[in-house]
């Protein structure tokens, strides 16, 4: 299959105005939307006008002057990229006069360009090379002894790409990509005239500059000036496979560009409906973990966790797993074992794991890591709207007038979506940020929130109810919408509740620490500023009142009529690539796929007929309950796929105690993770590059993951689950994930229309996709809520039990950073450590000062649950009294600090509020040392005895 580059029409599609014009280009008539450039028109007709500074991911610029055309009745030679089509225009693009001009421009370009095509990294993949051929340049009469920009030093500071100014043609596509597509404005042109030069920040190396390494400039660069190191190393790709990124919930689609079996580069796919041709450092560059030497490729087992691992064959490991689970069930009862699905595996794999547990184990003891991030979203939105997912698609943000971001840091957690949000903000949309920290959205180059509400951690419900107070008491609510779409009585009750003086902004000011008039102004802006769109993250859900906060958000949206059309909605920014899918597939202990409760007889009998077993009608155990049951001795076996609960779940001591009490823990993952320290069976897993399947992103978009290389461990993850299932006598006969999706579609109404051939044709589908919505549902709740009438739920502020006191005077909240993902298992095994090698504790200058702490000092972080040490970062990003850290690096084990308090409805842990004390320290805590020793001990793999 030859490597075909995606067609580049040179300029973006025109903004639709409904009008179209008809013109002729080189004698061919064509009718196109008003505002389309002549260049794009010619390209759509299959013609080819030479271009170098034009690319359709950024606005036209008109600098290279290669694309000049003749237009009848207009003197001169306008650039086709910056000239829109007009009614009756007659354009000629291939006259001799134009050929002479184009050759003249190209002769100037090549008079200042190295002639080392044969040894250049971009040989065969360079637009300058192509255009020089296309215009027929045969000589450079200017000679090469004049002034030149060649011979400048290369900047190789970025771990993933090089910058060679000598090969730069000053087309500014990189600068414009950084400004328009990414919105970081890290690049500029330094100087003027002949000496102009692309410069990162103040002419420094890319790595130390403001660059966030999203790769947009490398993608936009027409020559070898900005080029991936891997391309220089192994050569240009020869084939491309479209797949979906396995990092965050944005669900960017990429072209995995291969050279034989070797992945050369991941380039964002222009037709990807979630990322529209953009990427971030993780998806674009940090895929090296797939071939990292830490990957375990052979199954291993051991009788006890104190012994070293013993490598065994697949058959032996699978048989051992099945027999152990059967043994434990026989000894301790059917409900004594369970399993955890992964939010990073595919929908098909997650479905099979919960099927293994329900059909194979015969109980509902299945949970997923969504428990610890967006389970409150599932509960809250299903209570109010009737479905457990976000209401919009990502494109919808481009129609928003007021954007309200609560407890989310998209520029770090969902960077590609944040870029689109920043583009909308630059177009004039207003922004309100509710977050204890001064995140980049509060203020960073070209972005400034109109209102920042720096509330104390844990007081979300008080703040949102106060906003509701303003909206109701000042009659800013959308009466018509409420009357038509919601339950009038419930609204009345809710309205009375929120209008009481105790819930006014003034009353809650002491609690939240935010000035009342700021809250009033923000509420008025959201209610009256046009399309109001709410985006929220784990800062909302990871609280003891997570579910109440989600419902309070839903209340605000319903009260102001901001649901059921483009540009509005309630949008959870879900953390992982398939956390939405994991929930959809029935990973929760109380429901089957499609959010139908296990006690619902009709649904259960549907599954019983399909699977030929009677199913347990009682909800199973959640992860914290499994661990409790384990310490009580009634839960002895656990199957964990693609999850590291020891590092990601709170209260590490509690998790460790639970795991230690079990007799058979089976871990299926890429690497020996922290949970594997307590495992008895390790089944090596496969990466998203090594298997087919689908992921569902945060906008309910189901997208294909396609195998680009053979799995190093021999099996795709779904094949491994099938092996275990068949070893337990379940007789599954899948030979391709499409069959699993067919089964899902047959059993799940909202997925009824989802089949691989449809996904191949449409590129992606947003569920519900069934007869009622054959082409999927970009925007939900149009005309009416899934549950019928929107339900207003009274949400009263109940302060968390996690209180600061003399022993623990500060509040810790946690989060993520751009360069790392979740527990860092993947990103720590890539060059991303160049940006964030260790977790740091952000502390306010005043809190640091009165503890004698300076920037970079080692500090001890202690809560009632445990203690760890890490280095301090003194910053005003956090408010006084609040400290912040990430949990990407196991050495710090930040979760030894987090407590066992959790959301009242879903037990989603309260990561965001932990009372702590911070004191100077001189190095790792004792616990950290013991933990490191234990981890080292348990990772030993016995050397294979000489083959008998």
């Amino acid at each position, binding site marked *: 299959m030859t490597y075909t580059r995606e067609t580049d029409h040179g300029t973006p599609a025109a903004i639709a105005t409904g009008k179209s014009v008809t013109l002729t280009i080189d004698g061919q008539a064509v009718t196109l939307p008003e505002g389309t450039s002549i260049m794009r028109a010619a390209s759509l007709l299959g013609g080819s006008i030479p271009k170098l500074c034009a690319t359709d991911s950024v606005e036209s610029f008109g600098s290279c002057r290669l694309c000049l055309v003749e237009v009848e009745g207009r003197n001169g030679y306008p650039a086709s990229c910056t000239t829109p089509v007009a009614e009756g225009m007659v354009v000629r693009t291939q006259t001799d006069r134009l050929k002479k001009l184009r050759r003249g421009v190209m002769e100037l370009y090549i008079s200042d360009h190295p002639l080392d095509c044969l040894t250049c990294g971009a040989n065969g993949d360079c637009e300058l090379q192509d255009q020089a051929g296309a215009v027929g340049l045969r000589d450079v009469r200017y000679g090469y002894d004049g002034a030149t920009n060649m011979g400048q030093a290369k900047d190789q500071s970025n771990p993933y790409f090089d910058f060679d100014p000598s090969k730069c043609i000053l087309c500014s596509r990189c600068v414009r990509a950084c400004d328009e597509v990414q919105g970081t404005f890290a690049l500029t042109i330094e100087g003027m005239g002949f000496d102009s030069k692309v410069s990162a*920040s103040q002419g420094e190396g890319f790595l130390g500059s403001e660059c966030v390494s999203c790769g947009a400039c490398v993608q936009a660069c027409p020559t070898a000036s900005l080029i991936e190191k891997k391309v220089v190393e192994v050569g240009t790709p020869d084939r491309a496979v479209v797949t979906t990124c396995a990092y965050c919930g944005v669900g960017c689609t990429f072209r995995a560009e291969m050279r034989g079996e070797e992945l050369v580069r991941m380039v964002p796919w222009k037709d990807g409906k979630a990322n529209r041709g953009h990427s971030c450092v993780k998806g674009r560059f940090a895929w090296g973990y797939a071939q990292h030497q830490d990957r375990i490729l052979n199954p291993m087992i051991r009788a006890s966790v104190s012994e070293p691992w013993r490598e065994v064959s697949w058959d032996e490991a699978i048989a051992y797993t099945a027999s152990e689970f059967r043994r434990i069930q026989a000894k301790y009862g059917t409900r004594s074992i369970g399993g955890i699905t992964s939010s990073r595996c595919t929908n098909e794999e997650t479905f099979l794991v919960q099927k293994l547990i329900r059909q194979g184990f015969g109980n509902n003891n299945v949970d997923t890591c969504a428990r610890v991030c967006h389970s409150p979203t599932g509960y809250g939105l299903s209570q109010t709207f009737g479905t457990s997912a976000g209401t919009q698609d990502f494109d919808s943000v481009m129609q928003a007038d007021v954007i309200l971001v609560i407890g989310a840091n998209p520029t770090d957690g969902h960077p590609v979506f944040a870029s689109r949000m920043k583009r909308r903000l630059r177009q004039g949309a207003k922004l309100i940020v509710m977050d204890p920290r001064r995140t980049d959205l509060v203020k960073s*180059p070209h972005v400034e929130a109109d209102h920042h509400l720096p509330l104390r951690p844990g007081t979300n419900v008080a703040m949102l109810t106060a906003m509701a107070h303003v909206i109701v008491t000042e009659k800013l609510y959308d009466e018509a919408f409420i009357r038509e779409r919601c339950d009038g009585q419930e609204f009345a009750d809710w309205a009375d509740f929120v209008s009481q003086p105790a819930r006014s902004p003034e009353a809650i000011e002491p609690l939240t620490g935010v000035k009342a008039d700021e809250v009033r102004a923000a509420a008025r802006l959201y209610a009256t500023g046009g399309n109001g769109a709410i985006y929220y993250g784990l800062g909302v859900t990871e609280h003891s009142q997570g579910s109440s906060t989600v419902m309070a958000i839903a209340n605000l949206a319903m009260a102001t009529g901001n649901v059921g059309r483009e540009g509005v909605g309630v949008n959870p920014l879900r953390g992982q690539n398939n956390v939405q899918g994991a929930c959809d597939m029935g990973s929760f202990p109380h429901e089957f796929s499609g959010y139908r409760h296990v006690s619902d007889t009709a649904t259960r009998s549907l599954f019983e007929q399909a699977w030929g077993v009677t199913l347990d009608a009682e909800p199973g155990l959640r992860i914290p309950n499994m661990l409790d049951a384990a310490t009580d001795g009634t839960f002895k076996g656990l199957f964990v796929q693609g999850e590291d609960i020891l590092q990601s779940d709170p209260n590490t001591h509690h998790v460790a105690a639970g795991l230690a009490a079990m007799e058979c823990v089976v871990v299926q993952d890429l690497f020996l993770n922290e949970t594997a320290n307590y495992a008895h069976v390790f089944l090596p897993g496969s990466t998203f590059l090594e298997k087919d399947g689908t992921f569902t992103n945060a906008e309910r978009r189901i997208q294909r993951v396609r195998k680009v290389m053979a799995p190093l461990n021999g099996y795709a993850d779904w094949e491994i689950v099938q092996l275990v299932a068949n070893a337990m006598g379940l007789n599954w006969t899948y030979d391709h994930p499409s069959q699993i999706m067919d089964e899902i579609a047959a059993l799940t109404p909202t997925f009824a229309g989802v089949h691989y051939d449809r996904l191949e044709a449409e590129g992606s589908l947003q569920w519900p996709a069934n007869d009622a919505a054959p082409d999927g549902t970009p925007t939900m709740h149009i005309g009416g809520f899934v549950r019928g009438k929107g339900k207003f739920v009274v949400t009263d502020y109940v302060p968390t039990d996690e209180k600061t006191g003399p022993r623990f005077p500060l509040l810790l909240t946690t989060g993520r950073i751009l360069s790392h993902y979740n527990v860092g298992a993947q990103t720590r095994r890539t060059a991303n450590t160049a940006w964030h090698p260790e977790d740091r504790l952000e502390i306010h200058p005043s809190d640091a000062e009165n503890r004698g702490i300076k920037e970079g000092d080692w500090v001890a972080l202690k809560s009632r649950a445990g203690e760890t040490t890490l280095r301090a970062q003194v910053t005003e990003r956090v408010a006084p009294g609040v400290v912040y850290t990430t949990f990407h690096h196991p050495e710090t084990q930040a979760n030894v600090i987090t407590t066992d308090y959790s959301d009242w409805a879903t037990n989603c842990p309260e990561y965001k509020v932990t009372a702590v004390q911070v004191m100077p320290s001189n190095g790792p805590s004792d616990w950290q040392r013991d933990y490191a020793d234990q981890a080292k001990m348990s990772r030993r793999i016995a050397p294979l005895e000489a083959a008998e």
Partner: protein
Amino acid sequence: MDEFIEGWTARHGATRDQLLPLLHAVQEEAGYVQDAVVPLIARALNLSRADVHGVVTFYHDFRRTPAGRHVVKLCRAESCQARGGAAIEAAAAQRLGVAMGETRGDGAVSLEPVYCLGLCAVGPNALVDGRPMARIDTAALDRIAAEVAA
């Protein structure tokens, strides 16, 4: 310098269109726009360091290194050339001991090109420390050299 910028933006506002006026003010205050000041300006106007660096390096007026104690801006444009400007330029470089576009070793004087001061009927002209001088001849150069030496 941080307080200066804060005081200035408090009086004039911090929108992006204030960048050139602020750069003029910073150069007026400190004599030149030091690389270390660029981040402060960027933060004050909520721009990226790249934005500010691109503007500082684009315009001839903004210096990134200190100028000489005296600055002689000699006009090189056509009207002054028609009145003997080229010869005066050579003489000035020789008399002041500094090449065009450079600052003398001892930091006493910078000789800089300027393309037209709008005194095109009375050239060759120059701005000497901001003061316009017309019909410059070797005698005028001597006076300038004396001033520089003082």
